[in-house]
Each structure stands twice: as structure tokens, then as C-alpha cells.
């Protein structure tokens, strides 16, 4: 079946099978490899993308379900090839180690800060509890998100 996806502002028409997930289509058909996978059952969260503005775990979304949706991956946060403040904050605060989970955390944090730039440490933790990072111990991720909040304040 044919579906239409808008990914990072660009429209794609893709032929998908019912048993393909949004994760499969983004990675294998559209070629966006920044979306990773680590458990294929919604636990690790590293396949997180923004689906119509909200962070979801793309391994648990059928491609067909996403027909007509807008998807944002980490590439979509950049402007003219320049890093978004969150991405910069992650680098500067040591919030990246192996990097395999980074996109998922950045996207989730972007959603969080876009809704509420005055977040507390507890709210940051609550938003990222669904994601696993095995390297950093989360501390510097939390610091990076809190530090980037100022860029979201109007």
C-alpha cells in the first residue's frame, strides 16, 4: 500500500507492507539512519521520533498508521545545517558517549522544552524515563536539557 509521510518537512510517498513499522520505513526506505533500535518492543526508546509533534517509539507504530503524518527526526531540528541549541548543549555538557541513544533524547527534550521551557529537573527526568542510555548515567543529559531551556524561552 502507498502512504504519504512528511519527514522533516519533506514529503515522501512510499510503498509499504502492512507488517512494516514506521521505524523500518524511516531507516530502510527513506534512509534516515539516525533513528536507531535496541529492543524492538518499546522499552529502550532509542527509536523515538516526533509523530505529529509528539515523541513516540517508532518500533511500535505501523508505517500504515503513520499515513499522512508529519515526522520529525533529529535532522529536522537543525537549521541550514547548523546544530540546534539542544544538540550543542548535549555536546558541551558531555551528554553524549556512544551516541546511539542521542537522537531519541534530543527529540524528547525538544518536545519537552517546546511545551514548557521552565521545566524542573523532575520534569526532565519524567520525560526521559522512557529512554535508556547505558553510557552517561543520565546526569549530563539532564544538565544539557536544563541548560538548553533558555533558548526556548521567548
Amino acid at each position: 500500500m502507498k502512504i504519504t509521510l512528511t519527514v522533516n518537512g519533506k514529503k515522501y510517498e512510499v510503498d509499504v507492507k502492512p507488517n512494516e513499522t514506521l521505524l523500518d520505513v524511516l531507516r530502510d526506505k527513506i534512509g534516515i539512519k539516525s533513528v536507531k533500535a535496541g529492543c524492538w518492543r518499546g522499552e529502550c526508546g532509542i527509536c523515538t521520533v516526533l509523530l505529529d509533534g509528539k515523541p513516540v517509539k517508532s518500533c511500535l507504530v505501523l508505517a500504515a498508521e503513520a499515513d499522512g503524518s508529519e515526522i520529525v527526526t533529529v535532522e529536522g531540528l537543525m537549521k541550514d545545517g547548523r546544530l540546534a541549541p539542544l544538540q550543542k548543549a548535549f555536546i558541551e555538557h558531555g551528554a553524549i558517549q556512544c551516541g546511539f541513544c542521542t537522537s531519541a533524547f534530543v527529540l524528547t527534550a525538544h518536545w519537552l522544552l517546546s511545551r514548557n521551557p521552565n521545566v524542573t529537573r523532575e520534569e526532565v527526568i519524567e520525560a526521559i524515563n522512557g529512554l535508556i542510555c547505558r553510557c552517561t548515567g543520565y546526569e549530563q543529559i539532564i544538565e544539557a536539557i536544563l541548560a538548553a531551556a533558555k533558548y526556548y524561552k521567548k
Partner: protein
Amino acid sequence: MSLILPKFEYYKPSTLDEALELLAKFKGDARILAGGTDLIVDLRSRIKKPKAVIDIKGIKELHKLEYIEGKGLIVGATVTLNELLEHPIVKSKFHVLYDSVRQLADMQLRNRATLVGNICNASPAADSAPALLVLDAKVKAVSKRGERVIEIKDFFKWVKKTALEPDEMVTEVFIPEPPEGSRGKYYKATRNVEDLAIVGVAGLVAYPNEPSKRIVRLAYASVAPTPIRIYEVEELFKRDEPLPKLIDEAVNIALRKVSPITDVRGSDWYRRHLVDVLTRKLLIELFLEG
């Protein structure tokens, strides 16, 4: 586990009738897809291998989230848990539901998962189920043959089994207005911050200081093959006796009624212990708040 999903046919009806037609046609060999956070896991691990998957998100009327003053809350089958949490009335009136849904899965999953899906999955550990049990929720089941209302207490039949017939689906859950002045809470014991319940306890208390009018309800997750409400404690609290004594008795009744198993999350003895201490803690907090 496979990396890819098994083959199935995908349908996305835009009306309820179409969906019911498909359900009837596949005679139990179809699965309803709302949030997919349980279904897709079960598909990938081949626990479920349906011929057809029916995505109901195209059916507008199922996205109903409506509060009728004095009556209650209607939650349609495609309303996500985060949508529920963001509805101001849920937080202000349906405390126990709010509290349990807040602790259900995680933020990303709650953007997909639905309340109806959580109960239709019929896991003994379903976090929303004890809350719905103490709120006397009613489940609307619809098929081509007609519709019926199933009391939530009659909805769960066994581990992963509901009272639904193969051609039926749940279109909405109705949650009656909680008793006036009532407070509710959900305690969930877990191994770490992101876990299924080792034991979950939902409680609702009204008129804590007026024994004759006092309402106390308790329901549990992960202590039996289905989520259970323990009705036997409810009469008890109408007695005009010191609360600590009543709580002791309630705990004893609860411990007689539960039948926990040992699994990777916890042993039966530990679950029993949690029933004891969490019930106490929950009741005390609710009495003190009230």
C-alpha cells in the same frame, strides 16, 4: 524474537460499522489496533498471529473524551493516556485514575497507548484497571449483533482474557462521577522507576470521618490472574471502630483474597507483603487527606 512482524492484513475503517463488519468476517482472527503498544509487541514475539489488524483510529466517534457534569466521564477507544492526563477534569475529579495513568508505562508510550487498550490487553498488571475497578467503570462492547454494557468487575476473566466475544470491540469506557468528596490514589511497587507493577493498589475513600457514610474501596493489580477489587473490605469500614483496627482487618481480608504468583518481578511472599504494607499506607494517606 523476530525483528520483523508477521504477515497480516491491515484495515483502517472510517466507520464503526465497517470495523464491526470486519470483526464479524474474521471471526476472532482479527485484532483491534488502537495504540499498538501491547499489540505490536505481541505480534513481533508471535504471541498473537492474527490474520487481520483493524486500525480504529480512523473512526472519529471513538476519539470521544467527554465529561458530563453529574454523570461521569466517557473515554473513547482511541483516546490516548496522555490525552486523558491532559484533560483538566481527570486530574481534578478522577484522582485515582489520574494517579494510576500517570504511573502507567512512560511518556512516549502514553502518547500512543489508550485506556481502552490497557484494559482490553487484560494483563493482571494493568495499572489503570484497579482504578477503573474502584470507580465502577462500565465498558461498552459493540458488535454487529448489538451493544452491551459490561461492568468492569465482570470484564476481566483470566490472564489476558476479557469478557469480549470474538466479534465484539470496546468503543468506550464510562466512568461514573466518583462519590462526592472522595479521594483516590494508586500505589505501584516496582523494581525500578520503569517497570510493570509487582503489586499495584488503587484506593478510593470518601467521608473518612463519618463511619455511617464512609466509603472505602480497594482494588489490586498483579496479585491474581486478573486485576481484582476486594469488595469484602467495604462493609467493614462502615463500623464505628478505631481506624487502625479496621485497617488491620482490611489487610487481613485482602491477604485472604489475593493469590499472587512468583515471576521475574517478584515472589509470592513478597507480593503478599506488599499487599499488606501498601494497603496500609494507601488507606492511611487517604484517611489523612480526607
